[in-house]
């Protein structure tokens, strides 16, 4: 699955990093950064959690 991030919606909460630290990081202003665009089955649960807890609904998982 592909992860999509709308950075201009990001509110810098860092919730995605807490949910999936190997997929998301934050820049110095706290804005989320994608470390990996493609995620395998093993990381899907954590990324789905990140999608769900993002307070700005800025993360999406897209089927390919």
């Amino acid at each position, binding site marked *: 699955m592909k992860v999509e991030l709308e950075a201009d919606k990001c*509110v*810098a*909460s*860092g919730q995605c*990093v807490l949910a999936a630290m190997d997929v998301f990081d934050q820049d110095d202003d*706290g804005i989320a950064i994608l470390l990996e665009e493609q995620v395998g089955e093993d990381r899907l649960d954590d990324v789905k959690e990140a999608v769900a*807890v993002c307070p*700005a*609904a800025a993360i999406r998982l897209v089927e390919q």
Partner: protein
Amino acid sequence: MRRIVVVGASAAGLAAAETLRREGYDGTLTLVGDEPLAPYDRPPLSKQILAAEWEPERLALRTPDTLAALDLDLRLGVAATGLEPADRTVGLADGSALPYDGLVIATGVRPRRLPGEGAHVLRTLDDALALRERLTPGRRLVVVGAGFLGAEAAAVAWQLGVHVTLLEPAPVPLAHAIGTEVGQMLGQAHLKRGVDLRCGVTVTEVTDAGVRLGDGEVIEADEVLVAIGSLPNTRWLDGSGLTVGDGVVCDEYCRAAENVYAAGDVARWYNPLFGTSMRIEHRTTAAEQGMAAARNLLAAPQARKPFAPVPYFWSDQYDMKIQAFGYLRGHDEVTVVEGDLADSRFVAAYRSGDRVTGALAVGMPPKAIRQWRQAIATGATWHDSVSTTVPAVES
């Protein structure tokens, strides 16, 4: 379980519905919302929407396709009017009755109002759009209440060239929640831009001319925004037998009764991480609690998990991004542990008893904030956390 009803189609209700499907529930799933719109996000209402930086379409929490994939029995634009736990039905305003095996209550809150007609409130998209069309340069806006919502709206209005008067009953804005010094600092942010912040002022009613104060003085305004907090939407639960007291009272599993759970702004639950019952009106908690309630509803009793989050909220005011973790209310002490209040760049830590229970940061990088969140999440002692970061502890 073959029939689950989720009442409330905002962040918490949507998260509950999505989680039920993710966890494999494939029975009938009804999502009831009193607003006619598909689930949308509320925090931008007092920020990007009010400032006219975003159009309403950007608020949609899910695309139509994603929503359709949930295979919901979606009932929008109809409020729940009653709950009969004995025959397990939810009554709706259109006269229909929904039978359920499991129920998630996520009906949120409504704004508190003042006596008198014609004031704006800010809770729904319609509210925000109605206010935004009136915020044109040179007009006079009175905002009643300098909490986070009132302060955000005041900041946006000021940026739009509106003359803003911000009225607050307490001597210092938000002092009860975030402490006197931090509250003063946020108050200064208004004053130095020319927003007329007046504290210790009681507003008794909204009038045609503006607002009337406790001492009889009338402050004239073209528009009035009342932002004095909110009330949980629990009236529809009268007579249901559920315990209601400033929210739907739940245990640590967000459970209000057998097969009945609550989530989001309306839920008052026992948070074992802080050892107290709380009702949190934060966007992040709504989503997390919706997920937790859904999982516990489906789980066998011994597999239920307590909902023990570190609450989080943010607020955008002028050029400041304010972020707070934990449970700051009722704290015993606040100490600036990094940066300086005067620079609007700092982290303040909050102590309750001998524990770090909260942190509030303005203009700080994520790393500086994350370690404090960690301290709160792990129940770190105040002494260990603060003595390792600051040489001398202020009291």
